[in-house]
């Protein structure tokens, strides 16, 4: 059976969201915080459950690679992930299963597309906190295999245009791999929107009286692009994306969002905004593009039949 992508999520990775939730896997304890974003993820969790994917693919800017695009290629990975920027907030014990067959297919298809691509085979590899935070927030049960994809540094090393062209090719290669391996796949773009941030952390990180957008122009950009995406103006968004990246210091520069939309075929369908909020001043939106509801992928029961 031919596989398909059943949905894609903009699923940002501030570790503060895990910290605010106080799951047993995370050592630090909080008094909550960032509830609007955490409630947004609750809605995303429910919709993900309904999609019944076989696998979650996540592209994270915090696994940055220099030579090519890398894929986690070890069946089971575990350990303690400590955020190098916020070690006071995120010290998370994780265990995850990797869909190595699909990861290898993605790697092969990426090479076929002319990209440099590699498998990461070392069982002691330290999975980055961006991957772990996004996965925890979208599926805290950790019961769906994953494919972890690195962010090649081409948008920064070369330039935004050339770098995102690579991500476009990577997304299309990912789609071909999903189709040929027969998976029902959900894609996760682990990206913040505007990325201007505070330079000092509040004494009590979860004191929400201190949380606000770092810059008004960043906030205005976020609202503008979210509104476009809610209306389904995907083509228009991608025309605007370079300017958004430049003027809002947007983290989508690292490529996850382009990768995801290229894999989905850039459908001009409305995205569902589950919620928006700031974290140390950065703009974060949890958004969903449900390809089943849009008629672009089969519902779970039909797919199973």
């Amino acid at each position, binding site marked *: 059976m031919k596989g398909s992508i059943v949905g894609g999520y903009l699923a940002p990775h501030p570790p503060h969201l895990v910290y605010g939730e106080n799951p047993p896997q995370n050592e630090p304890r909080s008094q909550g915080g960032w509830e609007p974003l955490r409630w947004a993820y609750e809605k995303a969790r429910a919709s993900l459950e309904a999609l019944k994917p076989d696998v979650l693919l996540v592209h994270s800017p915090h*696994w*940055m*690679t*220099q*030579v*090519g695009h*890398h894929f986690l290629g070890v069946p089971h990975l575990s*350990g*303690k*992930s*400590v955020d*190098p*920027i*916020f*070690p006071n907030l995120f*010290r998370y014990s994780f265990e995850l299963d990797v869909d190595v067959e699909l990861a290898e297919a993605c790697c092969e298809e990426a090479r076929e597309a002319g990209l*440099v691509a*590699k498998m*990461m*085979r*070392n069982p*002691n*590899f*330290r999975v*980055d906190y961006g991957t772990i935070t996004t996965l925890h927030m979208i599926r805290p049960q950790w019961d769906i295999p994953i494919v972890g994809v*690195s962010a090649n540094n*081409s948008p920064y*090393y070369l330039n935004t245009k050339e770098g995102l062209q690579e991500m476009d090719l990577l997304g299309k290669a990912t789609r071909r791999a999903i189709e040929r391996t027969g998976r029902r796949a959900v894609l996760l773009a682990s990206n913040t929107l505007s990325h201007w*941030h*505070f*330079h*000092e*952390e509040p004494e009590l990180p979860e004191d929400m009286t201190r949380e606000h957008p770092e810059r008004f122009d960043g906030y205005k950009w976020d609202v503008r692009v979210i509104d476009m995406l809610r209306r389904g103006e995907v083509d228009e968004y991608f025309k605007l994306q370079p300017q958004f990246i430049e003027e809002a210091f947007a983290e989508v520069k690292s490529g996850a969002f382009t990768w995801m939309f290229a894999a989905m075929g850039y459908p001009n369908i409305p995205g569902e905004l589950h919620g928006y909020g700031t974290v*140390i001043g950065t703009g974060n939106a949890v958004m969903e593009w449900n390809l089943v509801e849009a008629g672009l992928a089969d519902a779970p029961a039909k797919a199973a039949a």
Partner: protein
Amino acid sequence: MPIASAFLVPGTPLPLLRRDNPPWEAIARGYEAAGQALAASKPDVALIYSTQWIAVLDQLWQTRGRIQGSHVDENWHEYGELPFDIRVDIDLAKACIASTAQIGVRSREVDYDAFPIDTGSIVATHFLLRGLDIPVVLTSNNLYHDGQTTESLGRLAAQAADAQGKRIAVIGVGGLSGSSFRQDIDIATDHIVNDDEDRANREMLALLERGDVVEVREKAPDYAQSARADMGFKHLYWVLGALGGQYKKARTHAYGPAFGSGAAVVEFQH
């Protein structure tokens, strides 16, 4: 200033992971020569700034007494692991933290099990301190700090050591030119990928060797920009700060490629 020795060294793990590869073996040998010089200088503590320990909020300093483990580099995982066992001078690190408010920089302690110590710090401590009973102060590269702030941090760290009566080895960990190969290569043929950057690296090394700090300061910003130097060459400013802004001359123990980018082991004589 209580300077025992000072070095600029690369943070790439390639000479450590694959020293059997001739272009990288030269760097490893240079690193070992620097290690011998450091040992002979008999410091009480090594002050290490690594461009690969990235911070964006505050200035971070390791305050965990002993850091042990094995690290897999996010880029070079195919070449194996980097075991480490590092002892930290907590008293001096805390004094450094207390000192930075005077330049308007807020510092924070990092004392967490499994904190992801960066590759550059591991490589430098391996080559320079292996087998020596010398503790370290490890600090981060805040992306929003410029060379001037980094130099001030180096100066404050040296002053804090002086106040504790400790002789220091100063170590700035980072690369030279930043352009690199973007695809797999025959590593035996590794070379500086860009001829202009190779020339710029050699000119900067010659300048450093002459010890004309005024000219170093004058030319370093242009070099950093034109050669895409690692993190704006801030690791040099750390060393200059700790040296009190002056030294007599320098010696390049090794210069070569690290997958197309520039790497050098430099010893400063003060």
